[in-house]
């Protein structure tokens, strides 16, 4: 006992104690639910069996039922569109802004940091603001688009099935651009300046310098940011809850909202768990790519 105590205060035990307690906490509250999720996806769960662990085992029935539902494939397609368009928009706008703020002028870093407000705001507040901006008759975005002649009539962003998904994508691009921009700025500032001086002496113009120095040097940052973007867009839930609630008629529904909707609106916990398992498996693959691409940095 005494040896144990002195090890806790002054030896290996101190480190092991410090690290094992939080890991145990994480494994209980993230690892166990993860396993439980998989178990539930093979069970029949209803309001009556919700309270017991031993529920009827149904094999792959939940998975078969899920893919037999007519809305499953459109929702998966929506998810793909949402992820691809959000990442592309966030990355392009963020990269453009990062390149602009890379040219040093007084106040550049302060103004650049100001962009991050979108990232610290509660997702629901961002959703509420965009819900109002995108409103059909009185929304300010429709007004601006009309005045600049881009559209003739009002677009009903939230209730038109052709636009409702794009309404959320616009809000999500706004939300994620700043984060992309800050991380890309970090990557840009790590490129040695003398590379540019040397190529300037060799007579390379701005475009050539961008394609032959900036992009290749940024390859690992860009890879990490793409993977992070995938992870973050698949976590986006608040904007759907605040802008469209997945409507109209699932036109803007994506898997991460649908899983919640199935569990907590339709009380079909088994289906909710099933779709969660599929998506979590997908996110895990993405994060392995991310961890591998940043492994050198993480190890420090």
């Amino acid at each position, binding site marked *: 006992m005494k040896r144990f105590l002195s090890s806790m205060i002054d030896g290996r035990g101190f480190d092991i104690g410090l690290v094992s307690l939080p890991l145990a906490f994480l494994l209980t*509250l993230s690892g166990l639910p993860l396993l439980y999720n998989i178990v539930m996806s093979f069970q029949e769960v209803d309001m009556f069996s919700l309270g017991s662990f031993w529920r009827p085992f149904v094999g792959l029935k939940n998975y078969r039922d899920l893919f037999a539902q007519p809305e499953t494939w459109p929702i998966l397609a929506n998810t793909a569109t949402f992820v691809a368009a959000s990442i592309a928009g966030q990355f392009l706008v963020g990269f453009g802004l990062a390149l602009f703020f890379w040219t040093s002028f007084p106040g550049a870093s302060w103004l650049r940091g100001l962009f991050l407000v979108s990232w610290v705001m509660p997702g629901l507040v961002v959703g509420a*603001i965009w819900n109002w901006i995108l409103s059909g008759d009185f929304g*300010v975005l429709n*007004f601006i688009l009309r005045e600049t002649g881009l559209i003739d009539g009002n677009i009903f962003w939230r209730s038109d099935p052709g636009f409702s998904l794009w309404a959320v994508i616009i809000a999500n691009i706004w939300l994620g651009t700043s984060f992309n921009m800050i991380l890309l700025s*970090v990557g840009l500032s790590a490129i040695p300046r003398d590379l540019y001086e040397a190529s300037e002496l060799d007579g390379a113009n701005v475009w050539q310098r961008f394609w032959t120095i900036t992009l290749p040097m940024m390859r690992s940052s860009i890879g990490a940011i793409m993977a992070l973007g995938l992870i973050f867009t698949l976590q986006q839930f608040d904007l759907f809850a*605040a802008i469209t609630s997945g409507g109209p008629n699932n036109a803007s529904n994506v898997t991460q909202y649908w899983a919640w909707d199935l569990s907590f609106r339709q009380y079909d916990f088994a289906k909710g768990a099933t779709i969660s398992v599929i998506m979590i498996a997908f996110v895990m693959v993405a994060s392995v790519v991310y*961890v591998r691409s940043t492994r050198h940095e993480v190890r420090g």
Partner: protein
Amino acid sequence: MSNVSRDRLLLAVAIILAGIYLFPLYWMYITTIKSGSEMFATPPTFWPTDPQWQIFGNVWQSRNMGRYIWNSLAIACGAVCVITVLGVGCAYVLARYRNIWVDIGLFLILMLQVLPASLMVTPIFVGFSQIGLLNYPRLAVILAIAAKSMPFFVVLVRATFMSVPQELEEAALVDGNSRVGAFFNIVLPLARNGILVSAILIFMQAFGEFVYSKSMIQAVELQPASVGLNSFMGPNTNEWNNIMAYAAIYVTPILAIFVLLQRRIVSGLTSGALK
């Protein structure tokens, strides 16, 4: 072009870009103080003709915002406490050693960081209801948020500990400090700022958390402000000035903290997240 005028031009462009980007925020504040009829005017006014300042007090009263904000604060403080107490030690050990076990621990933590809350809420809800934790819904939400955000905190704080020179700690050990003493007297004070900034970031996230609270807290008296805002926004609402006032009251403290600590937050975030 001379250097000074180039700088001025770039600064002007930068301010315009920032203005475009931050327009949604401006629109929130401007809509708040518009009257009911001005809000729906076409063309919309970009500067209110008749500012309605009393709206903040009215919305605070009628939506019972004091209670919502109090719940948000309680949840966020609870989550930050749990995360800091557990996460700091974990980050310290992961920063101090470099072997296969540390790599495995880091990998586990990075993998747990990416789990989407809206997908994890189903098993957490069912599990919590089975062990009776849902009778204490705010505690349940605090635990769920802590599990969700702790990996991010550990990654950020680990970067801070990496920048504390190990020689200082070794010197303290040579001088007769125990490991515990060296940790609390030398390492923690040196890493204080980084820990504080990370804790503030976690606090902001937890203050705006929505999925867990919406799913696990049924009683209106215990719901945080995000859930209150969600129930305020019905499908066909037209009280946009009131909703924006609610949003403004909710978000202004966070914006104030952010603008005050902007430099530290940005540098803390960039050092931890990608480097």
